[in-house]
């Protein structure tokens, strides 16, 4: 283990390490802690320029209540859910199949097709922007959640394919060979042999794609416009112009907007980290 484990070091270093940990954490999260503190201050503190003194009152319920009951925030949150969940299902579903095709079969174009998926996944969004916006307009899906979902599914399929294909290649081949010898059709091999083994990969990808899509901002502002279809990342800017200079509400709103992926991460931490390393670091 590197560096030397603290339990093997001097008592002095051990104690200072234990003390250093929380201090380092507070410093690291300082900008966020500042916003969290803002979000429970009353309006009056900002009027009196009491930014960093002791809050004159703790308005946790009032501020967050205002976000949830007096603003459009719940609608934006709902939009985000309705965009993110179908995208996760669609992209991961498609990638189970493409990953299977590229991970199991040997055919001439295999590597080429795979590399197109991988390269496409890394291109800058701007090179897609004008044509994708046109396509969405032509399909009559501009400013709809469906339009956004279709694009996200297609784009995320690139990353998901990379991930799934590598995962499937690491599975024991003998299982598939044995099933073939038994005369099991390829479709049934996919469904009954490979898919059950892909559960960990499906979990990891789902958490990851959830976070990616939830946090998307660029496509939200390119493909949608109003409160009917915009997700919370785009909604927060509208929210902020509604509550201009009401920093306690803007802070509370930001925290609400940021929360769902954070919850997802804490609930599914193991899967999340497995996904992030692209399966490259075992």
């Amino acid at each position, binding site marked *: 283990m*590197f560096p030397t484990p603290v339990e093997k070091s001097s008592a002095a270093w051990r104690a200072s390490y234990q003390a250093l*940990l929380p201090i380092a954490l507070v410093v690291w999260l300082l900008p966020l802690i500042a916003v969290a503190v803002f979000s429970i201050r009353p309006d009056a503190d900002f009027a009196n320029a009491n930014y960093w003194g002791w809050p004159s009152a703790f308005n946790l319920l009032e501020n967050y209540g205002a976000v949830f009951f007096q603003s459009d925030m719940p609608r934006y949150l709902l939009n985000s859910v309705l965009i993110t969940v179908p995208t996760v299902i669609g992209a991961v579903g498609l990638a189970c199949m493409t990953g299977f095709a590229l991970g199991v079969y040997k055919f001439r174009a295999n590597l080429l097709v795979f*590399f197109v998926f991988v390269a496409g996944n890394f291109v*800058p969004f701007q090179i897609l922007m004008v044509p994708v916006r046109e396509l969405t307009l032509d399909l009559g899906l501009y400013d709809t959640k469906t339009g956004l979902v279709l694009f996200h599914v*297609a784009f995320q399929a690139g990353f998901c394919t990379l991930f799934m294909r590598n995962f499937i290649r690491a599975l024991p081949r003998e299982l598939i060979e044995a099933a073939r010898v038994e005369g099991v059709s390829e479709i049934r091999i996919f469904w009954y042999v490979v898919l059950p083994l892909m559960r960990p990969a499906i979990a990891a990808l789902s958490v990851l794609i959830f976070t990616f899509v*939830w946090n998307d901002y660029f496509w939200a502002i390119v493909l949608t416009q109003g409160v009917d279809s915009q997700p919370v990342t785009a909604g927060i800017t509208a929210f902020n112009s509604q509550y201009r200079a009401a920093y306690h509400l803007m802070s509370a709103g930001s925290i609400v907007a940021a929360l769902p*992926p954070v919850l997802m991460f804490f609930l599914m931490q193991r899967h999340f980290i497995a996904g992030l390393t692209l399966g*490259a670091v075992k």
Partner: protein
Amino acid sequence: MVAVATPPRGAKRKAKAPTAFGGYWRRNQLKLAPWLFLAPGAFFFALYVVAPILQSFQISLYEWDGLGTREYVGLRNYEELWWDDAFWTALRNNVVWLVLYLLAIPGGLFIALFLNQTVRGIRIYKSLFFFPFVISQVVVGLVFAWFYDPTFGLFNEILGVFGLGPVAVLGDPDYVTYGIIAAGLWPQTAYCMILYLTGLNAVDPEQIEAGRLDGAKGWRMLWYVVLPQLRPATFIAFVVTIIGALRSFDLVSVMTAGGPFGESRVLAYYMFEVALSEYGFRMGYGAAIAVVLFAIMMIYIAFFLTKMYRDEKGV
């Protein structure tokens, strides 16, 4: 990797009453199946990713407001880029982003080494250090915009303690890009940290012990024994950081909208501004900017694919 062996024909179960199609499928399914499984994903990907890239190249040769007719102008959009100061500012900022963003890699390694212990509660600490990466960049941008605020921002409070400031980081053409990059480094460092933490888990303890017996300590141990074993993590960290740097859009958009005086624009943001904002709907000109950005990104994509190709052939 074991090669795919075609199973012996005789081993296949005969269908009870094979239809013409069923028989064809059964005979050729090993050839057809991959295309069948690829079809839906490949269709979507071709429609929404591959074709648009080609279309963008084409659109960059036209003058087009997105509604009316397109007028073919050849390479004139690119020529205009050459004389466009805003373009060069954005390109310069992109280079600054690329270089400074790489600080996330040593930064992430440093935090990972700091946290790679087994004391009580360390798991919670690791998760909380990773926190910034999970938050959307829009919120990171807002958080940092307030952090830098000259009237109530914590940044200037801290400067005040040392008798400095106040500095309006986001209002100053000299500091603004660095201020935004610092905000971007926050989640990116967290990402690199988690990559290294996972990598450190896989470091071979025997090699470390052997290094210790040979008298390697501290920096030398890190450089000669640990880092070589972390190469896969370093590679991924490098790839995601470069891509993150070139994709920087959200932070610029939320924190400054390119200002002041366009000094914090990057290509990704300038393209959006040209093509889809109140500054006009110049799709062709925007597409030309996107092509330049794509060309820069292509260098790294090619590098990544070459590495992958070698790994594939190496197996």
